[in-house]
């Protein structure tokens, strides 16, 4: 039981997909302009991770080793299509602001990475928890980055103005600001890791 919980919690900090594994940086850079976008992207990616981890873990014994990557992609693409259509149906505004990055979850390296590194070698329960942990870790990282960027770049979070008279730092709304924030947070994570070790 303890092992199972570990599979979930490792994705949050110790093996956080963004800050420690440094996977999925492209969507992280692109959608972390606002917290709303980050939450939407995080939920969609978590759903895809969960679904694909489950299915791949179930069919792992039937997939021939040589063509395993195309098989994973088919499974992942199915879930991405589900997520995309749901998002289009129920929150078209979010879908518009995320744009191309929802279909691009197919090639998100966190999803493929977990399929290749974990789900194809572990049983159902462990794969499920691993996918969930990674998804939640990814979502939390996105929220952290986007909260910093949205606050500095536009002076508000989720539409609420925090400090009156704050002059927004436009850079943080631009891609260069995303790289700066991610770089500094990566450094901070490494610093904490070094202190612990």
């Amino acid at each position: 039981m303890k092992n199972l919980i570990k599979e979930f919690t490792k994705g949050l900090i110790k093996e956080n997909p963004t800050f420690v594994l440094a996977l999925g940086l492209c969507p992280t850079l692109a959608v972390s302009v606002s917290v709303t976008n980050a939450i939407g992207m995080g939920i969609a990616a978590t759903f895809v991770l969960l679904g694909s981890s489950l299915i791949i873990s179930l069919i792992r014994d039937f997939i021939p080793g040589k063509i395993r990557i195309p098989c994973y992609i088919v499974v992942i693409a199915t879930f991405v299509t589900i997520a995309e259509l749901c998002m289009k149906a129920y929150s078209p505004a979010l879908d518009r602001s995320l744009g191309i990055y929802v279909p691009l979850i197919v090639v998100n390296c966190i999803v493929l990475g977990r399929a290749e590194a974990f789900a194809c070698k572990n049983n159902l329960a462990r794969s499920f928890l691993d996918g969930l942990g990674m998804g939640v870790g990814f979502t939390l990282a996105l929220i952290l980055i986007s909260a910093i960027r949205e606050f500095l770049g536009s002076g508000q979070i989720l539409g609420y103005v925090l400090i009156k008279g704050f002059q927004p730092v436009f850079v943080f709304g631009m891609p260069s600001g995303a790289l700066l924030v991610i770089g500094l947070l990566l450094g901070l994570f490494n610093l904490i890791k070094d202190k612990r070790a």
Partner: protein
Amino acid sequence: MINNLMVSGSPHIHKKESISGIMWTVVISLIPAGIAGVIIFGLDALWVTLVAVVAAVLTELIFGICMKKKITILDGSAVITGILLAFNLPSGVPLWLPIVGAVFSIVIGKQVFGGLGQNIFNPALVGRVFLMASWPKYMTTFVKPFHYDAVTSATPLAMLKEGKILEHISYWDLFLGKHGGCIGEVCILALLIGAAILLIKGYISWHIPITYIFTTAIFTYIFGAAQLFSGNWLFSILSGGLILGAFFMATDYVATPLTAKGQLIFGIGCGLLTAVIRIWGGYPEGVSYAILMMNAATPFIDRYTKCRIYGTG
């Protein structure tokens, strides 16, 4: 420190000069341009410069204490960063702007890479570009010279970009700095005095500044006007931050190539990029972006201009 190796082109000659000695000489060589800036734009220019310098030095001190590193504020490099940053600001900016810029310059431009000697980019320019991208409104509002009550005026380059006629500005005015612009870039005469000090002392070599300025001039002459070979090359030298950039910022020891050949390539690259940004780019001025881009290319230039070891190859 793990990395105590000095990397430089041979031959290695030992000199009594120290980093701090060179740095303080650079500070002295910047003073004429500062005085000119204060005369032209009033006391506001002095406050902006002082605030930037104090903020840069304090940031360096606080960062050094927090990171438990050797405190390096006395070597003068933070002072130079502060001065150069302020020289790249208009005199009418609110005083928090140079503070934010100086903190950004020191922390992001220099210390996160490991401090003096490790920075990839010129810290002052990193700060300036950050401010430019974040608060363009303040960064492009220039004060009219000798009107100390904040009458705004455009820089000659901005006027040129908007297609206005520049007849009322003579080359002599440009040379003495009687036009809108950043604090330290306007007075070419004062900048040349400072540059002369550095050149005579041998602290900077002629390679980067001369190739930089000539490339910009030639490129502007060829492509700067509607017809080929009719651009106003003298205007391109005397306006904007070209002289300040070429002598004081493109010659940063750390972020520029080591060999003479590399420095020539660096200068030509800076000149080309500056002219391209000025002629076809969205901004009226391109000196800071050009130097930063060539800073990024410096490791490659160094790799391909390595001195051949005598007796091999």
